[in-house]
């Protein structure tokens, strides 16, 4: 029996559940798949507080009709385009975390995503991504191809920095074909740009030795770049010694004008994509030890603007799913009656609590040194 087949069987066996017994396979690790919603997703039209009278008042044109929503509680419902998330919700595998944000919010896309990527406070400038900091202390096992793989995106986001071995690719086979052009020996330079190029080249060569592009999957993904990125993520995920983190992103959420059509399409891609990802991870036996989590730089303004759009906001809702997730609503429903001076929402859950949950939940890593303080975990995982 091939080692990989053995592992796949092992993963499927009930003895090896979420709480992987230490020592069962020391090199095996849980996988975190991050999905970035670029541009600032409108949380209020993602998980809609339909019972709140302020919702319709603030959004005469954008409010979604109550009977079109997919109810998840007496007061909240999912956008209709997220219909394929409903089975996950009903299975109890979808955690909805409401009110994620941070104190003294910054409304610039670029500064706010920097805050999210580096897990800094609002007025603190950190050079490295939060995952890069975590891997610097707690690297992936040596046999792993990389700490993190960014699929189909440009920036490394939370993986940026010297602390992580991170690679970016869109097609693993193509990556491996080209990787022969990279040299793996240690070379360095006093020129910072050149030193960066040499590090990237070395990371390519090192990961190419071990990267398993995975096999074709039966699961189908929607056409388009996001579906393609998720399929690649699922194929890479099939190898339990591939990477600790995979990040994909979906762009276009900056809906300042004519929001309804665009936002609906984006949420359809998100919902369909996450549902297909689940199916593929079940197919490859990795669903039980994978966490999938969304994030975005901010939510959007509760009050719509005159262009049938929404401007930059603050706190928003995010999804965590996976075989070990305890489905349900977490955090607090948006308080539309208590907006701040800019007309934005107050946050209920500090995003660093979200990260602490993921760090500890995925790898048992101590989040305190990474996040620079103590942030209470959210109880959204089965222990």
């Amino acid at each position, binding site marked *: 029996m091939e080692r990989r087949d053995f592992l796949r069987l092992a993963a499927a066996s009930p003895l090896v559940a979420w709480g992987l017994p230490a020592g069962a396979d020391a090199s095996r690790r849980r996988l975190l798949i991050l999905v970035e919603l670029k*541009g600032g997703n409108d949380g209020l039209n993602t998980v809609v507080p339909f019972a709140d009278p302020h919702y319709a008042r603030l959004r005469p044109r954008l409010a979604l009709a109550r009977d079109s929503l997919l109810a998840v509680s007496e007061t909240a419902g999912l956008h209709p385009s997220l219909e394929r998330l409903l089975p996950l919700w009903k299975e109890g595998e979808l955690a909805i975390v409401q009110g994620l944000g941070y104190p003294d919010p910054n409304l610039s896309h670029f500064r706010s995503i920097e805050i999210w990527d580096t897990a800094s406070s609002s007025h603190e400038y950190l050079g490295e991504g939060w995952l890069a900091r975590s891997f610097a202390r707690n690297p992936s096992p040596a046999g792993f191809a990389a700490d993190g793989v960014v699929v189909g995106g440009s920036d490394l986001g939370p993986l940026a920095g010297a602390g992580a071995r991170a690679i970016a*690719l869109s*097609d693993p*086979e193509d990556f491996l074909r080209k990787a022969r052009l990279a040299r793996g020996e240690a070379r360095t330079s006093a020129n910072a*740009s*050149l030193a960066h190029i040499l590090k990237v080249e070395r990371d390519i060569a090192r990961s190419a030795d071990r990267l398993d592009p995975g096999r074709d999957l039966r699961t189908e993904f929607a056409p388009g770049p996001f579906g393609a990125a998720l399929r690649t993520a699922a194929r890479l995920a099939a190898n339990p010694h591939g990477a600790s983190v995979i990040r994909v992103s979906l762009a276009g959420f900056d809906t300042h004008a004519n929001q309804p059509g665009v936002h609906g399409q984006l949420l359809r891609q998100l919902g369909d994509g996450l549902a297909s990802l689940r199916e593929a991870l079940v197919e490859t036996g990795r669903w039980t030890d994978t966490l999938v989590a969304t994030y975005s730089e901010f939510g959007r303004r509760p009050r719509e603007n*005159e*262009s049938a759009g929404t401007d930059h906001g603050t706190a928003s809702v995010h999804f965590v799913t996976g075989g070990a997730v305890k489905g349900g609503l977490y955090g607090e429903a948006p308080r539309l009656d208590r907006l701040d001076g800019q007309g934005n929402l107050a946050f209920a859950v500090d995003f660093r609590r979200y990260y602490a949950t993921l760090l500890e939940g995925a790898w048992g890593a101590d989040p305190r040194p990474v996040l620079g303080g103590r942030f209470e975990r959210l109880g959204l995982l089965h222990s």
Partner: protein
Amino acid sequence: MSRARPLARLAGAILLAAAGLAGTSLAAPAAPLGEAAARHLLVRTGFGATPAEVTRVAAQSREEAVEALLAGARTQATLAPPAFVDEPFFPFHKLRALPAEERLAYARRNAQEGLALREWWFREMLVTPSPFTERMTLFWHGHFATSQQKVRSSRLVHRQNALLRRHALGSFRELLSAVSKDPAMLVYLDNAGSRRQAPNENFAREVMELFTLGEGHYTERDVKEAARAFTGWSLDRDTGEYRYRPFFHDGGTKTVLGRTGRLDGEDVLALLLERPETAAFVTRKLWRELVSPVPDEREVERLAALFREADYAIRPLLRAMLLSEAFWSPANRGALVKSPVDLVVGTLHTFGIRPFDLRPAVAAAALLGQNLMSPPNVKGWPGGEAWIDSSTLLGRKQFLDRLMRGADAMLAQPEPMMAAGTPAAGAPTAEERLRRMMERGLATYAVDWERWRRELAAAGGGAERSQVVLLAVGPVDPPPDPADAVALARAFAADPAYQLR
């Protein structure tokens, strides 16, 4: 509030010009640049440099070379744009009313036209006698980033490109005002539909954060109030031209950056230019384009003061920056990472490759992360080290490998260079289409090595000359047989140092 003080500005400009002239005449005896410095100036201000260009500029002094660059700057492209730019604008409201198939046909045609525009721009970069004009046009395109995907009209995209070129080395004050009323920008940042009842904040925020002050130098209240001031700057729905719509405009009292009044959009732009942060912000960005990744703050202060004194005339700022010690410092040679356009256009130019079809080159740059007229977002391309990740570095190496080995690469590589490893579900993605376009076309690109040898010889050199023409700093990996110009060029193009400029 008072608008301009033209007299004071004019006087300032004259004094400054005089100071500049005096500085030139007092400079030490004009020493010739030499080849390495000549190449440095050429690749920082243009796209690549041929052996002949290096030789020509090497004989000039710093001042002569910089003055020649500034004097040669243009306000128009040398090549006529694709013919469609003169066709009438197709109004968005008519577009929305079309049946679905016709809308799709419009979108396809628009994408084709966009590609033709990019190809036209790439060719302009290759053939223009003033590559500096194109570099500055590209710089402003990254600064005032606008994407064709959202604007959905290649005519408007072309008009903006022409506007950026017209002001590329002119006045930042005029450029800012013109671009703020530019139809493509009005669509891209949603100001066209912004109304007084509930203004759209998109443009008001980005004009402060990304175009002038920089993040942290304004408040959320400033954004909201400025958004009110910009209401009314809109489009004529039928012609696609700028049009002021008084009915949309909020004529009430606003307070922006501490100034209160019945401010309109021009007032807000003037206020932004009054702040010292604006000159410093633009100077820093230009420094990262021309000098080094980390601006020297004392120099930024000096140059930004000069920029303001000159009432935001761009030329004096460029002159001062290009004549600064930092620009010529050996420590800053090769300190910048080539952008994909630098890499693709620069390599074609350096080796004298003039393909009939430049769309594969456009596609190559796009796949490497720089699709002109389609920046990733309003912040433009982040640039610097962000150009290089494992995916783009491999893409760069492969592009160069392909170009340098020409027909050999085809024979040596039985499988397609970019085989679609993932079974395509349905229609090909935009990325797959770009790959195919690059694939097909790149096979027709090749270096004429005989010509390359002749050029090197005419420029009076062998191996050392190859290095000085091709690399900003010494190679990381030791080069092979120094007698073989072809082997050397291939080795230098494959060297990590080739990614620098």
